[in-house]
């Protein structure tokens, strides 16, 4: 794996050599090189997400080279390193990027990893841009910790409101992973949203990461006959939950958060995914900020449609390029530039940062229809 990421770095820097030629239109940082350390779980348990992220930076490096992303004549060099879903390796890589001249750290992939690793970078004064950490309390880890991913609390309430209104939901059952920051906060956020609409929660079931058999929990839920099944899970588990729910004859409408927003979810769950509503930060069908070209070229290059993780990573490259274009080349300057960032057109849509360093963007409520995501109406 080290070889592979080494290759990516080599490929990135090679293509970026021609970048300065392609977009010679000089900004204040023209001719300078900005090194960006990227930590992604390319292999291991979270490999599905990290691979999407890595792919997005490969594509972004190409697009910077070709001038499709404008960095004002500066070079941005993404050093993508695989943390192999191992928190210890995330820490090691964070230490490395804190002392090797990187001006920005993008990553790590999971919220739980971020909570361990970010404080190290914060102490070293390294600016952080999280692209996939959606748990609560990420940007409060330091004064220069940003994120461009909409948190669950920014997407779930809207999705719940629409589902409750549309399906006249009175009762709901929740199944969520109780050993992960993300899925755990999913439960709190869904519960708050359901309570706000006066929906009775008739059953709460839990599971563990990597579980494959959810039939006991779903048998219990089925016996309570809820109107709505809330799935607080990552894509891997969510697939099996919706499939096994169908197998057991549980016919409630299903709803989930960002964890389900992936073409892979539909591909793996097949017909069982049909009708599932997902509160999400990215709609692959949007036409903002070069998204159509991004989707087309991603498909062509990697053979599958980009998911939310890829889009958020690519948007991070777009945001970083914008800050560099305005002259930011050091960690401190990037932090300041992010704080003053005007609205940037990204593949996620128009994006800016709140004073809390969380992202300001519109959420999308999607529904699986005919084997793809569509807006939930």
């Amino acid at each position, binding site marked *: 794996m080290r070889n592979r990421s080494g290759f990516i770095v080599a490929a990135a820097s090679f293509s970026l050599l021609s970048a300065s030629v392609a977009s010679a239109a000089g900004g204040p940082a023209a001719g300078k090189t900005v090194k960006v350390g990227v930590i992604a779980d*390319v*292999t*291991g*348990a979270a*490999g*599905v997400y990290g*691979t999407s992220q890595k792919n997005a930076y490969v594509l972004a490096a190409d697009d910077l080279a070709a001038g499709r992303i404008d960095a004002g004549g500066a070079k941005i060099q993404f050093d993508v390193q695989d943390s192999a879903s191992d928190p210890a390796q995330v820490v090691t890589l964070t230490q490395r990027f804190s002392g090797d001249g990187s001006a920005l750290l993008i990553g790590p992939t999971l919220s739980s990893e971020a909570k361990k690793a970010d404080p190290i970078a914060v102490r070293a004064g390294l600016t952080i841009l999280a692209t996939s950490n959606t748990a609560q309390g990420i940007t409060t880890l330091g004064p220069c910790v940003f994120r461009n991913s909409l948190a669950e609390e920014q997407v779930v309430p809207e999705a719940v409101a629409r589902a409750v209104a549309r399906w006249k939901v009175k009762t709901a059952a929740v199944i969520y992973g*109780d050993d992960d920051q993300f899925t755990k906060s999913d439960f709190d956020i869904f519960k708050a949203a359901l309570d706000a609409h006066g929906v009775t929660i008739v059953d709460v*079931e*839990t*599971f*563990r990461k*990597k*579980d*494959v*058999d959810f*039939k*006991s*929990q779903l*048998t*219990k839920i089925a*016996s309570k006959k809820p109107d709505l099944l809330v799935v607080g899970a990552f894509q*891997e588990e969510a*697939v*099996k939950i919706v*499939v096994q729910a169908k*197998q*057991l*004859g549980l016919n409630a409408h299903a709803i989930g958060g960002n964890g389900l927003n992936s073409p*892979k979810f539909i*591909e*793996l769950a*097949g017909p069982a995914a049909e009708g599932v509503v997902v509160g999400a930060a990215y709609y692959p069908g949007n036409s903002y900020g070069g998204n159509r070209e991004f989707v087309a070229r991603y498909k062509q290059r990697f053979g599958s449609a980009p998911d939310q993780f890829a889009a958020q990573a690519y948007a991070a490259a777009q945001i970083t390029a914008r800050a560099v274009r305005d002259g930011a080349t050091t960690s401190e300057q990037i932090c300041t530039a992010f704080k003053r960032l005007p609205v940037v057109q990204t593949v996620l849509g128009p994006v800016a940062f709140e004073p809390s360093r969380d992202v300001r963007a519109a959420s999308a409520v999607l529904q699986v229809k005919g084997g793809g995501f569509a807006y939930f109406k």
Partner: protein
Amino acid sequence: MILQQCANGIFLGAVYALFAIGYTLVFGVLDILNLAHAAIFMAAAFAALWLTASGWPLPGAALAAVVFAGLLGIGLDRVAFAPLRRRNAGTLAPLISSIGAAIVIGGVFRGLFGPDERRFPEGSFAAAQFHIGPLTVGALDLIILGVALGLMLALSYVMRATPLGRDIRAVAEDRVAAALLGIDLERTIALTFFIASALGGAAGILIGLQYNSVSTDMGGRIELKGLAIIILGGMGSVTGAVVGAFVLALVETLTVASIGASYRDAVAFGVMFLLLVLRPSGLLGKRALRAA
């Protein structure tokens, strides 16, 4: 609902059992713990998936993948265990080399297929559901249970009533004495690995089908459970492993049904701990394989 939960537990137990008997067979014969068993489990699932995706009908693909798993097992023995056996390396060195083999196999398959989860092509297996009284049962669940029980019976027949079974039991009893009596040691061990790995491979294919999910880390999920099952059943005891598998699966399922999934592993392993305190050599005692 309790009936449905028991059915859930039995279907789960069948797959656990299939995985665990191959695991325990190698231990019973060679006194070594083959930690690459889970890697072969995964490799077979991928082989079946790949063949199905390239147009093979599922039964043919599964059969070929089972043979592939068996051959992989023989290769594993040649590379990771035989050289150590010749040097009388004891039981710890093979344990480590089997971990190494597992890492290599895992790496190769990740390189070939990537970290993504895969599924069998649409319509390659029966998706029908039956309603028997209050029970909802999938056709696939029944097939899996049938195949698992069939393979277990076949293994028990081979062990009891064939010359090969006699050889395997003799080698398990005393390797040196068996060799002195003219049993071809290396051939018997190779065949043991073939059978054990083929069974592990069958478990991989079946579990991949049951959850319609095949991924390079699928072995990790079942490895610890398999180890717990064979200890509970009595190390080396095939029947014990089967009983242990159903006990674990039922305890797990009923814990989730009555207490909640958060306590599932705590309760399951707690029960196992208690059983082992009462019967330190496992449910079916020691060396049951040799008596089989």
